[in-house]
Structure formats: structure tokens, C-alpha cells
């Protein structure tokens, strides 16, 4: 069976570490990025099936990063999940839909919920 690839993009090292460890234990191939710029740099090589993206990040926000990812046809099918403390309002949720974000996971993260959501999104 082909292992699914997941990229974790977050500027908080502790979150990156704990999420990566969890996903690796579950058999996923995990790459990480500390911000949007690094995510875009690593995309061609890592070719993830799913990106777990933080919203508030220095240099390039999660939203900006997703806009840039969606501009590239090569990553048209990559699934993206926001994991964030951000409380998007109705207008923000419309933007989330336009960016074709598959799901939102609220921080602080529940590892149980994260596992469930990752499975759900990858099965879609």
C-alpha cells in the first residue's frame, strides 16, 4: 500500500514535533515547514497528499500560502486543512471555501480529533 504523504506547516516547533510524531506513528510520510515560504520551497520534492496549515505565521500567512499553492496547477489536488486558533467569521469561511480548504481543526489540538480529521480528508 502506498503511504500517504502529509506536510505539517506551523511556526510553533512543539506543534510541528508532536503532530509529526503522531502522524509518523500512524504510518504517514511526514515533511515539515516552519512557514509558508518554506512550505512552497519544499512542495515540489515532498509532493504531499495533504497539508496541515497554520494560519498565523511570520513572513507568509497560511492564507497567503494556500493562495500561492492554488495558483499552481501541479498542486491542484493537494488537500489542505487549516489548524488554527483563528475564529473565522462568515466572510472568512467563504474565503476558506474559495481556497478549497477541506477542513478546519481548532487549536489547541486534540490529537484524537486530528487523527480522525486526517483520515476523513484523505478518504474524500
Amino acid at each position: 500500500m502506498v503511504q500517504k504523504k502529509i506536510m505539517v506547516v506551523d511556526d510553533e516547533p512543539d506543534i510541528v514535533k508532536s503532530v509529526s510524531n503522531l502522524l509518523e506513528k500512524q504510518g504517514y510520510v511526514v515533511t515539515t515547514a516552519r512557514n509558508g515560504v518554506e512550505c512552497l520551497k519544499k512542495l515540489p520534492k515532498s509532493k504531499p497528499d495533504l497539508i496541515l496549515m497554520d494560519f498565523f505565521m511570520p513572513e507568509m500567512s497560511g492564507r497567503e500560502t494556500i493562495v500561492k499553492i492554488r495558483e499552481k496547477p501541479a498542486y491542484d489536488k493537494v488537500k489542505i486543512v487549516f489548524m488554527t486558533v483563528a475564529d473565522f467569521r462568515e466572510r472568512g469561511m467563504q474565503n476558506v471555501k474559495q481556497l478549497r480548504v477541506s477542513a478546519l481543526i481548532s487549536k489547541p489540538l486534540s490529537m484524537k480529533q486530528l487523527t480522525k480529521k486526517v483520515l476523513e480528508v484523505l478518504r474524500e
Partner: protein
Amino acid sequence: MSKGLDKVGKSIEENQITLLLVPGESYNSSLLKLFKTLSKDYSRLLYVALNRPVSKIIGDFKKYRIDEKKFYFIDTITEDASLCKKLKNCEVVAANDLVELSLKVGNTVSKKKPDVVIVDSFHTMEAYQDKAVITRLAHDLIAKLDISGCKGIFPTVRADRDAPLTKDMEMFVDNVAEL
């Protein structure tokens, strides 16, 4: 998108949090006209001044015959707090101390119970703060306004309509209006 003074007034009435695009060439005068309208429609307004010292803002209010008594100011520009203390309706916070600024706005909203909070303008902070820090601050303040139920108006120069900070902030506001 709501455009023009009347429509913006209506938009503010109908929405809790408004991102307001203001023409750069008439930024101050356009806002002052809006404040004049707001001061008639609302009895308590909190003005968080990130652009200009309150002394200058009050000078403009006098020119435009805006009732300054309806406003409470948080001034992040004036360095000498004693200048602001002369005014009863003003407090000074260092612009680079975002924790203090957030607390001050939160406490003032709780105590003074304003109908409207104007933050003018988050974009000014880009000169000395990372965009992610400003977006977090805006998100934090909006959460505080949500709890208190008061309205928020975040003016920005229209030319920054497509700037990343504007687009990120759009995620947390109810409406984008244009003067």
C-alpha cells in the same frame, strides 16, 4: 461592497466588524466626515490612535465640529504620557507593546462600554511589526469586541485593498466597506 458615507454608515449599523477602505488622497478628511456622522449616531466611541497623536486628532475634531467628548482615546504615538493626562478622555500606550495595547483596549472596552471601537490603523504597525503579529492582535481585539458586543471599525488605505494584511484581516471581519 458598501461605498460612500451613507452606505458605510448603514454597513456599520448592520455589521459588527467592518474593514473600511479609505481613499489615501483624502484619508484624514474622509475619516473625519465619517466620525462626525458616527458621533451623531453613537454616544460612546473608543478611538485607538496608531497613526497620529491624539492632540492632532482633537485639533481636527474641532475643525470639523466633532463632539470630542463622545470619544475616549488610546494614544500609541504620543511618547509623553503627561501630555495626554491633561485630557480626561485619553490614555497613552507604547505602540510596540502589543500585550499592553491589547489589555488596555480590552479593559477600556469593559469599563467604558463604547458602542464603537475604531482602530486607526493596523496597517501603520507594519512599519515595525511582523504582519502575523498584527493579524493576531486584530484577531485578539475582535474576540474582545465580540464578548462586549460593541462594533469595530478598522480603517485602511484603499490602495492596500489587496495587501496580504488586508486579505488576512478580511477573514475575521463581517464586512468590507469603502468610503
